[in-house]
C-alpha cells in the first residue's frame, strides 16, 4: 500500500516537473532577474555593449524614481496609475451592474443585447484605442454629438487637455497618506466603540491623534525631498482613456453580475414581492447584497487589467504624452528608447509590486476558502 502511494506521488511529480521547471525559469527566474537588473547601473552609457560592465548600486534607482527631481514623470505616471485603477474599477462596476439589472428583468431581445454589451471585451486594446482616438478627436466624434439636436459642439479636448483636478504637492504625500490612515483608524475606532469595545476604541483614537499631531506640526521638521514643489493630480486628459477602458470592460462586469443576479433564487424575489417591495427595493435591499462576492472578483480582475494599460495609452495618446502616462509606458521608454535598462527594470518591479497588492490578498482568500 505504502509503496503504491509513493509511486503515485512520484508519477505526479514527474508529470508536473516540466511545467514547474518552465514556470520556475520563465516566471520566477525572470522576476528575480528583473529585480537584480534594477539594483545595478547596467553599463551606464554603454548599456548596449556586448558585455556591459555591471555594478550593483543597491536601491539607488528606486530612490531616484521616488525623490529625484528629474523623475517627475514617473511620479505623475504613478499618480495616473492610481486614478486609472480606481476610476476604471468604479466605472466598469457601476455601468456593468446597471446593464446587468436591465437585462435581469428579461426585456425583449435580451440575448441580443447581452452579446452586444459583451462584444467590446473581445477587441484588443489597440483596436479599442484606435476607435476611441477617432471618436474623441477634438473636432469630431463625441464632441459633435450635441449638434444633432441643434446645440453647439463640445470643445472639450478629451485626450490633450492640460488641466488637472485634485492636485496635491508630492512633497506632502507622506502627510496625505498619514491623513488617510488616521481617517481609517478613526472610523474603525468609532465602530469598535459602538460595538462596546471601549478600550480598543480609545487606543485606536490615540494612534489617530498622534498621526494628526504629526501632520499638524511635523511639516517644519521633515526635510524637503524635492527642490521645487511638484503638483500631481488627476489629469483631465486621462478621462478619454478611462472612458474607452470602461466601455471595453463594462460588458464583462455585466456578465459577472448577471450570473450573480440569476443565481438569486426566485423564492427570495417572490417573498420580497409578497412583502410589498417594489423593483428598486428588491435590487437595493435583496439582490445587490446577494451579489457582493461578485463585486470582489470584479474588483480583482479589473484592478489587474487596469495595470495593463500600455497598449491602450500607446494607441490613444502615444508614448510622449506625459499627461496620460503610465508606469508601463515609462518603463518601455526608459528601457528601449533611453537605453536605461536598470531604471526600466526598477519601474517594472514597482509595477509588479502594485499588481501583487491586488493579487496576493485575493489568492490568500481563495486558498483559505478552498481549505475551509
Amino acid at each position, binding site marked *: 500500500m505504502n509503496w503504491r502511494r509513493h509511486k503515485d506521488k512520484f508519477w505526479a511529480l514527474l508529470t508536473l516537473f516540466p511545467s514547474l521547471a518552465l514556470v520556475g525559469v520563465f516566471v520566477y527566474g525572470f522576476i528575480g532577474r528583473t529585480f537584480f537588473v534594477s539594483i545595478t547601473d547596467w553599463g*551606464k552609457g554603454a548599456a548596449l*555593449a556586448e558585455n*556591459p560592465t555591471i555594478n550593483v548600486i543597491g536601491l539607488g534607482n528606486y530612490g531616484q524614481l521616488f525623490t529625484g527631481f528629474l523623475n517627475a514623470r514617473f511620479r505623475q505616471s504613478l499618480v495616473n496609475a492610481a486614478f486609472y485603477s480606481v476610476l476604471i474599477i468604479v466605472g466598469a462596476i457601476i455601468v456593468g451592474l446597471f446593464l446587468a439589472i436591465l437585462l435581469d428583468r428579461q426585456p425583449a431581445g435580451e440575448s441580443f443585447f447581452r452579446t452586444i454589451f459583451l462584444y467590446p471585451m473581445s477587441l484588443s486594446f489597440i483596436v479599442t484605442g484606435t476607435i476611441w482616438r477617432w471618436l474623441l478627436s477634438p473636432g469630431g466624434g463625441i464632441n459633435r454629438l450635441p449638434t444633432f439636436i441643434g446645440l453647439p459642439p463640445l470643445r472639450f479636448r478629451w485626450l490633450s487637455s492640460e488641466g488637472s483636478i485634485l492636485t496635491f504637492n508630492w512633497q506632502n504625500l507622506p502627510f496625505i497618506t498619514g491623513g488617510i490612515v488616521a481617517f481609517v483608524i478613526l472610523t474603525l475606532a468609532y465602530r469598535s466603540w459602538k460595538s462596546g469595545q471601549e478600550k480598543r476604541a480609545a487606543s485606536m483614537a490615540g494612534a489617530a491623534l498622534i498621526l494628526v499631531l504629526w501632520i499638524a506640526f511635523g511639516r517644519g521638521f521633515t526635510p524637503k525631498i524635492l527642490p521645487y514643489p511638484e503638483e500631481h493630480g488627476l489629469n483631465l486628459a486621462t478621462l478619454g482613456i478611462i472612458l474607452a477602458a470602461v466601455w471595453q470592460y463594462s460588458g464583462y462586469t455585466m456578465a459577472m453580475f448577471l450570473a450573480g443576479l440569476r443565481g438569486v433564487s426566485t423564492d427570495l424575489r417572490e417573498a420580497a414581492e409578497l412583502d410589498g417591495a417594489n423593483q428598486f427595493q428588491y435590487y437595493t435591499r435583496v439582490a445587490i447584497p446577494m451579489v457582493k462576492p461578485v463585486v470582489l472578483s470584479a474588483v480583482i480582475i479589473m484592478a489587474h487589467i487596469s495595470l495593463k494599460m500600455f497598449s491602450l495609452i500607446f494607441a490613444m495618446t502615444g508614448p510622449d*504624452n*506625459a499627461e496620460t502616462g503610465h508606469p508601463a509606458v515609462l518603463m518601455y521608454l526608459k528601457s528601449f528608447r533611453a*537605453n536605461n535598462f536598470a531604471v526600466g527594470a526598477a519601474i517594472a518591479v514597482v509595477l509588479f509590486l502594485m499588481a501583487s497588492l491586488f493579487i496576493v490578498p485575493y489568492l490568500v482568500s481563495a486558498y483559505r476558502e478552498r481549505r475551509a
Partner: protein
Amino acid sequence: MLSNKRIILTLIAVLTVGLLATSLTAVATSHGDSEEHLSGKLEIFHWWAGSEGPAINALMDYFKEEHPDVEVINAAVTGGSGINAKAVLKTRLLGGNPPDNFQIHAGRELIGTWVTADRMADLTSLYKEQGWMDKFPQNIIDRVSTEEGIWSVPLTIHRSNVMWYVPDKLDEWGIEVPKTWDEFLEVAPQIQENGVVPLSVGTNWTARHLWESIALAELGPEKWRAMWDGEASVWTSDAMLESWKTMDEVLQYVNEDASSLSWQQATDMLINGEAAFNIMGDWAAGYMATVKNLTPKTGFGWAASPGTEGEFMWLSDSFGLPKGAPHRENAMAWLKLVGSQKGSDVFNPKKGSISPRLDSDISKYNEYSQSAANDFRNDTLVGSMRHGVVANEGFMNDMATVMEQFLKNRNPEQAMMMMEAIAKQNGII
C-alpha cells in the same frame, strides 16, 4: 526496447546532418565574402518610406547599376524620425544579427548609443582613402568622430533653425519678419489683435525644437558648441537662464491646442492663415512644396530663426557600419556611394534635403534647397540637439521630461537646473 534504440539512433543521425549542414553554409558564406568581385547580398536598414521612398530607391538603383551581382535587400522600417526603426535595430544588434548597414542620425545619437557600446567599425581609413576629409565641412567631421575614429558617413543635411511664414499674409497684416526674439515679442501682440496666433507650435518635441533655436540665439554658436563639449559653466550661465525666460515669453503667443498637433498640423496653421510664424526644420519646405503644392518664396517664405542669422544648425542622416556586418565588402561599397558626390546628388534632390558635401551640384536642387546650400557653405555650422547631433539618446529622452515640466509650470530656473542635472546624468558634463 528495440524501438527506443531506433529512436535514439535517428535522433543522433538528424542532429549530425543538421550540424554538418550549418557548418557547410557557414563555410559557403565566408567564402562568398572574401571574393573581390562583389556578389552576394547587401541589407540596407533605414526608415525612409512614403514621400521619401523614391529617394532611397533611386540611390539603391544606382548601386545596382554599379554592382549588378549584388542582391540589395531593402529593410525599411517605417515611422517618423526612425521611432520604430531604432527599436528594431536594437533588438537586431543585441540579438547578434546586425544588418550590413543602417541609417542613423549623425553625431551623438550614434556615438552615445552604439560607439560607446563598441558595436561600430571605425571608418577613418575609408574617409582617407576616398579623400573625404576636406570634402565635408570640418564641423560635420568633428561631430561624427570621437578620438577613437570616425563613425558614420553623412548622406543628407537638414537645417533646424528656420522660421517659416507666408509672405502675402504678412503684407496683409502689415508686419515684417522679426530679426530677433525681442522684435518678435514686440510684434506679437499686434499679430494677436488680428485674431491670428503669432507662432504655431505642435507636440512636445516641436517645443524642444523651438527651444534649440531660442537657445542658439541667446547663447551664440561658441557657447552652444562649448556646452556640448562638456563646458559645465555654460549650463548654468545667465545666457542659459535667458533662453528659458525668452522661451517662457514666447510661449504666451502660441496656439492653445499645441500639445495635440503634429508638426504638419502646426505648419498647416501657417498655410491656412491661422498663424503668422512657425519654427521647424526644413523638411517643412518639402512638405509645403510637394504635399501642399506651394511655390517657394511666393507660397511660403523663410528666414533664419530670430537671432541666428548667419548660423546654420544642422542635422544629418548618415550610414554606419556595424561590427560583424555579414557582407562587409558590399557594405563598404554602399558607404562609398553614400559619401560620394554622385550618390549625394542622386538622393538629396528627391528627398528635399541638401548634400553635406561642399562640392555638390547646386543646380540639381529646388529653390529652397539652393538657398539652404548657400547658407550651409557660408554660415557658421552648429549641431542640433533635438535631432541627435550634439546630444545622446539618454539626454534627448530626459529632455522631453524637462520640457513637459516646463510647459506645465513655466519655471525657467527649474528648467535650467534640470537641464544641468540631465547633462550630468547622461555624461555630457
